[in-house]
């Protein structure tokens, strides 16, 4: 439903890298929102999704979706996962080994909609593999099947645990579009785990920053990241991959982020302490770049 606000208030004790850690989350998520969970390995992201899905039982707390109570330790309610109308992409895929790719994707549908499945397979670059068993797929192909399987059901609530981590930039972008499309068409409330900041900006309406089991920030991505990290100027971190000598100056090649390569000129004095492989910040006080649509 459009106004099914999701209210989470859950606690669970876990062990983190620094000893015991209590995962404790209180938050409301508006219906139809796309929230990206961002946080260190072991912060509790998967556990949070599993609690929402009903696969892990919180030590105590409540989970409410609109008027429905999915979980309440006080009232002894724990709705089983199959009733929760969710889609879940597992970090380790969990494909059914006995079914072909097609049947894996079709499995969750209530009314078989062949056209939609064919379209999904097409968009996911899986058409050729429709009749294969998952065993014979590459890592990235498995991940795509897992995502397609969750989308095929058109659930009201999507829980995606690093659904794109095994994919290269090209297919990743196109699947990000699929997620956005699915989200906007049916207004599915979506929680997605990602480690990739660009992905966060590309997908998230809201970001939930999780650290050591607690929410450290919740809001629009630029509020969460930009205001913290950037103060109006361009500041780019990267690695020097090449230092070339020109007539009177040096030309540095700096690689930043995923695919970004910047050439920077530098003078003898700047270069003194730099060698290839150094991590550097590239910044500019007077910078007037232009943008061009791709």
């Amino acid at each position, binding site marked *: 439903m459009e106004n099914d606000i999701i209210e989470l208030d859950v606690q669970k004790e876990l062990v983190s890298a620094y000893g015991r850690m209590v995962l404790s989350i209180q938050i409301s998520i508006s219906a139809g929102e796309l929230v990206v969970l961002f946080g260190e390995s072991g912060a509790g992201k998967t556990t949070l999704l599993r609690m929402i*899905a*009903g*696969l892990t039982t919180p030590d105590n707390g409540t989970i409410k979706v609109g008027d429905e109570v999915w979980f309440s330790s006080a009232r002894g309610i724990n709705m*089983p*996962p*199959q*009733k*929760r*109308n*969710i*889609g*879940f992409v*597992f970090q*380790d*895929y*969990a*494909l*059914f*080994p*006995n*079914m072909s790719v097609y049947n894996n994707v079709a*499995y*969750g549908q*209530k009314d078989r909609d062949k056209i939609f499945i064919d379209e999904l397979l097409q968009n996911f670059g899986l058409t050729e593999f429709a009749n294969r068993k*998952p*065993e014979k797929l590459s890592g990235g192909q*498995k991940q795509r099947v897992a995502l397609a*399987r*969750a989308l095929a*059901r058109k*659930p009201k609530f999507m*829980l995606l645990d690093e659904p794109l981590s095994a994919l290269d930039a090209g297919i990743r972008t196109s699947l990000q579009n699929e997620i956005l499309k699915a989200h906007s068409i049916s207004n599915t409330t979506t929680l997605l785990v990602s480690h990739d900041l660009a992905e966060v900006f590309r997908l998230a309406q809201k970001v939930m920053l999780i650290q050591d089991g607690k929410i450290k920030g919740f809001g629009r991505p630029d509020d969460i990241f930009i205001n913290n990290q950037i103060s109006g100027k361009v500041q780019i971190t990267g690695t020097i991959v090449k230092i070339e000598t020109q007539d009177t100056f040096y030309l540095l090649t700096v690689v930043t982020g995923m695919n970004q390569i910047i050439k920077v000129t530098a003078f003898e004095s700047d270069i003194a302490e730099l060698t290839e492989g150094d991590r550097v910040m590239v910044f500019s006080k007077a910078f007037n770049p232009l943008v061009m649509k791709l």
Partner: protein
Amino acid sequence: MPSPFIQTLILTGKLAIYTTSILLVIGLPLSYFMAYARFRFKPVLEALVSMPLVLPPSVIGYYILVAYSPNFWFGKLLSEWFDVQLAFTFEGILLASVVFSIPFMVQPLTNGLRAVPVNLREASYTLGKSKTTTFFRVLIPNIKPSLITAIALTFAHCIGEFGIILMVGGNMPGETRVASIAIYDEVQALNFDAANQYALTLFLTSFVILTLIYTVNRKSDAWKMI
């Protein structure tokens, strides 16, 4: 009327097929329960299910015979309420055979179910499928080797079952005289040729059936978790 030889073989096959079918129906839910339910006395239930193996068949047969007799409440109930007497009838040996082949069906199935990675079940639940659907569409197909072992063991054991049937069935031609009893009879009569003939037929038929079963099974050999 077919020759006693053929009649005996048909009876044997019938008993084995019926027992296996009935046990499949009982064994699947029971194994599911044993594999996934968590309760304190589960080891006790597991031990109970293995019990038919521990007691010698002739002894079990004796106790069943007593239970079937009209002097005992169970037999009395059956004969008074339903006018059924189980001893020395096909239904009687079928019931005995079902009860005492349980471990052969349930043990492999339970083990198979336990070995299925938890997250396959979880994935099915998150796709909105009930436990029943998950059982038939995800679990069963993924324990095919165990399922086939269970069927093969149960079937084979029924064909070889002897002590219980001898006691409960009493060697009635066409009714309870299955091949194992017939062979025993012939050996006792020192008719070794007839015994060999039965044994050979039994051996070859079972051998062929089992080889076929295992050939089908072959495709679902080792599998990777995806």
